[in-house]
C-alpha cells in the first residue's frame, strides 16, 4: 500500500489540539475530503524558466548590451569618482552620480532598443490562446508561435522572444546555472502548493478541481537537498495568494488544468515579489511515485514583470540596474520592448496587449495542504 493511498484512509482522523489539550473540530479540508472524495496535495519541488538547450533560436543582431556599454561616454566621466565614493563607503553617493537609473524609472530616457528573438526556436510550452498565431497576421497583439520539442505547434512563449537574446538567459547562462541548483525552490522563503480534488474517476483518468496557493513558509529539505514529500504545508495568511478553484482533467496519466489567475509569492536572494499570472494552465505527467512533472504556462502581467525584474534590493539599496547589467539587458530597453511582444489581455480601450505568455518547467511532490478553518473549500 503506497502512502498516497494510505492518506485517503486516514482522512477520517480526528485532530485534537496539542499539549494543552482542548479538542478542536476536525479541519475543513479533512472533513470535506471524507465527505467528498479524494484530495491530493502537492508542493512544487522544481521551478525554472523554460530555456531551450537544443535550438534556442538565433540572434542575428547579437546579444543585448548593458547600460554601461550603451552609455560608455557618460559612464567614463563619472566612473572614477563613483568608484572612489564606493570604496569610501558612500554607496548612495556612488550611485547618485551615475546616469539616471532607468531601472527605477524607465521614463528617464528614450528607448535605447532591445534585441528580441524573432526567428524560430524549439521550446516547451502550451498553446495558451488556442490558435496558431502568425506575426504576419498583424494587429496589436500579433505574435509568432513556437514549435515544441515533440513538434507541437502553436506554443505561446513571448517571454522567450523578449529574453532569448539576453546573455543571462541563453543556455548555460546565469539563469540556467541558478536553476541547476533549484534555487527558486530551495532558497525561496515560500512554497507553491497545488491542491487537486478528484471529482470523478481516478487519479489516472478523471475529472478534478484544483487550486493554487502560496504557502506560509518555505519547503522542507532533506539531507540531500531534495524537497521532502508528505510534509504538511500551511497556506499563506493572505487570501491574495489563494487562487480560485479551476477545473482540470487527468487523461492517461496526463494532468491538464486551467485557466486560472494566480499570484505566486517568491522571496529568493535579493528578490521579494510575486508573479502575477493570468489564465494560467498546468500540464503535467503523473509519475509512478506520486509526483508530477510538467509545465506551467500563463500570461504574465507586464507591469508586474517589470517590477519583478527590477525591484531588487540588498538592504535599502535598489539594485535593479546592477541586476540588469549582470544579466545582460537595459531596463529601458526591456520596458519599451514589453508591449511590442505582449500577446495577452488587450486593454479594452486601446487594444494594447498587457501580458506576456511565459512558460515555467516544474515538478511537484505529494504534500498536505493545510488551510485555516476560515477559508472555505472549493465549491
Amino acid at each position: 500500500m503506497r502512502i498516497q493511498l494510505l492518506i485517503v484512509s486516514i482522512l477520517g482522523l480526528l485532530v485534537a489540539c496539542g499539549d494543552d489539550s482542548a479538542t478542536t473540530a476536525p479541519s475543513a479540508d479533512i472533513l470535506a475530503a471524507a465527505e467528498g472524495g479524494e484530495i491530493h496535495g502537492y508542493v512544487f519541488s522544481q521551478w525554472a524558466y523554460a530555456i531551450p538547450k537544443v535550438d534556442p533560436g538565433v540572434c542575428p543582431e547579437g546579444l543585448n548590451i548593458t547600460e554601461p556599454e550603451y552609455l560608455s561616454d557618460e559612464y567614463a566621466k563619472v566612473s572614477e569618482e563613483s568608484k572612489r565614493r564606493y570604496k569610501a563607503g558612500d554607496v548612495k553617493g556612488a550611485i547618485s552620480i551615475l546616469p539616471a537609473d532607468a531601472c527605477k524609472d524607465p521614463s528617464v530616457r528614450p528607448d535605447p532598443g532591445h534585441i528580441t528573438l524573432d526567428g524560430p526556436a524549439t521550446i516547451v510550452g502550451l498553446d495558451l490562446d488556442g490558435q496558431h498565431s502568425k506575426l504576419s497576421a498583424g494587429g496589436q497583439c500579433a505574435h509568432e508561435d513556437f514549435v515544441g520539442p515533440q513538434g507541437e505547434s502553436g506554443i505561446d512563449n513571448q517571454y522567450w522572444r523578449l529574453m532569448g537574446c539576453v546573455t543571462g538567459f541563453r543556455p548555460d547562462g546565469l539563469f540556467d546555472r541558478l536553476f541547476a541548483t533549484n534555487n527558486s525552490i530551495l532558497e525561496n522563503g515560500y512554497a507553491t502548493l497545488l491542491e487537486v480534488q478528484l471529482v470523478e474517476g481516478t487519479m489516472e483518468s478523471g475529472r478534478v478541481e484544483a487550486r493554487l496557493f502560496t504557502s506560509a513558509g518555505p519547503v522542507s529539505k532533506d539531507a540531500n537537498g531534495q524537497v521532502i514529500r508528505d510534509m504538511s504545508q500551511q497556506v499563506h495568511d493572505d487570501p491574495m495568494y489563494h487562487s480560485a478553484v479551476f477545473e482540470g482533467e487527468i487523461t492517461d496519466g496526463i494532468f491538464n488544468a486551467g485557466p486560472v489567475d494566480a499570484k505566486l509569492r517568491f522571496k529568493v536572494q535579493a528578490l521579494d515579489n510575486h508573479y502575477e499570472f493570468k489564465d494560467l494552465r498546468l500540464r503535467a505527467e503523473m509519475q509512478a511515485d506520486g509526483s508530477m512533472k510538467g509545465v506551467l504556462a500563463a500570461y504574465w502581467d507586464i507591469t508586474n514583470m517589470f517590477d519583478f525584474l527590477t525591484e531588487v534590493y540588498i538592504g535599502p539599496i535598489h539594485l535593479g540596474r546592477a541586476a540588469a547589467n549582470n544579466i545582460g539587458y537595459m531596463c529601458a530597453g526591456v520596458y519599451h520592448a514589453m508591449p511590442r511582444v505582449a500577446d495577452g489581455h488587450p486593454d479594452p480601450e486601446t487594444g494594447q496587449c498587457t501580458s506576456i505568455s511565459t512558460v515555467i518547467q516544474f515538478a511537484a511532490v505529494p504534500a498536505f495542504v493545510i488551510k485555516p478553518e476560515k477559508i472555505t473549500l472549493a465549491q
Partner: protein
Amino acid sequence: MNLKRKIHRRGFLCGSLQGVAISVGLPFLDLFLNSNGDALAATGAPLPRRFGTWFFGCGMNPQRWNPVTEGRDWELTPELVPVADIRDKMNVLSGFSVKMAGESNQVHRTGVFGTLCGGAPKTAESIEGPSLDVLISDHVGMRTRFRSLEMAAMGDPRHSNSLRDVSSVNPAEPSPLSLYSRVFGLGFSDPNAAEFSPDPRLLLRQSALSIVAVDRKRLERILGHNDRQRLDQYFTSVRQLEQQIALQLEEPEPLAACRIPDSPAQIPIDSEVDHVVANHALMAETLALALACDQTRVFNMTFSNRASGLRMPGSADTHHTLTHEEARDKTLGYQPRATAFVLRTMQAWTSFVKTLDAVPEGSGSLLDNCLVMAHSETSEANTHSVMGLPFMTAGSAGGKIRTGLHVSGVGDSTSRVGLTMQQAMGLNIGSWGTDQNQTSRPITEILV
C-alpha cells in the same frame, strides 16, 4: 576590564585566605563569567592558545574543490592542490551549510554571518552578533594587550566580519604598516621583560576548592567501602584541578620566539591580486610575531572581502563580477578567469599557515598552539549558494584539534563548525546557534 595592571608578586600578601594569597584593588566584578577560558586553556601547557579566522570572498567551485575521499590522506582536488604542503597541519570541512527557514539568502551576507553568528541574518540590515571570534576573545583574549587584531589585506578597514553586534564592527588594520605600528609601536612592552602577574582569579578558584576538601573526612565516615572509593576518585579529580591551577600561578617560561621585527616594506595597497598577496604576507609575518609576543590571542584576517574585489593586474574585472559575468568554459566546465582567483587564494592560505608554522614555540611551532578557521561567504559564487560552504582549519590548538583530515558535513549546519571551534578553545558550551542552525553536535572527528 584592565587586568593588565602589573602587580608585583610580593604585593599579593595583603589578604590571606586559608593560606592562599589574594590581592586587593583589582576589578573583580565579572570575573566569574570570564574566568574559566584561558585558565583551563592553559591546562598543563603554559603556552597560550590562539584562535583566528581567515576569510576569503566568493568561495570556490564545489565540484573542483571538495575532496571526494574522507578522513586522513584525502585526495587532493584541482582547487586544493596549492595546500598540498600543509595538508597534515590542516583540515578540510566540506558540505556544511547555513540553513535558511524563511529567511532569504542575502547574497554575500547570509553565508558569512550565518557561519560566524550561528544563524542566518533575518533581514538585510540585521546581524545577530556577536561573531565567533568575539565569543572566543571574551574568553581567551581578555588578558592580552589587544582583545583581538583585525587585518584586511585589500587595504579597506571595513573588510571585517568581526562584530559584537550589527552596530559595532571591529575595523581592520588596512596596511602592514598600520598593523606594525599598532602592535610594535607606542605601548609595546617586551613581555619577557615585564614582571609576571598571576591571575587573581586563579587564587579565588583555589580557595573555593580548598573548602571542598574539608568535607572529605565527614563523608568518609558515613560512606561504605565502594562509595568511599568513588569519593576518593572525586577528590583525586579535585586535586588534579588544584594542581593545574597551581601550575598557572607559576611564572611561565619566557616567550622564546618573541622579537620586534623591522618595519614592513611598503607595497601599493589596492585590490590588485599581486599587491594583496604581498601585503597579506607582510601582515602575516607581523601577526605571527604579535602572537609570539602574546600581544593578542585572537585575530581575524580578511584576505579578500565578501563579494571579492580582487583584480588581476591590468584588468577592471573583479573576481566577483567575473563569477557572474564570465561564461562557463564549455570544455572545462567552469569559469577559468574567476577560478584563477580561487587558486591564488588557496596559495595565500598556504603561505599564511606556513608563516605561523615557521615560528618555533615550545617543542613545536606557533601554529601548533593556534586554531585558524578559513571560510567564505559562498560555495559557488555564481549562484550565491550557501550550501556546502568551504571551510579549512589549521593548527592543532595546543593539542585539542586533530589535523590532516577531511570531514564532510553532508548538509549539516555551519554551526557545527563554530561549536567545534569554541569547544576546542575551551569555551564551556554544549550547544550553539539559533533556530535551524542550532546544534549540540561538535565535529568530533577533529576534536581530541
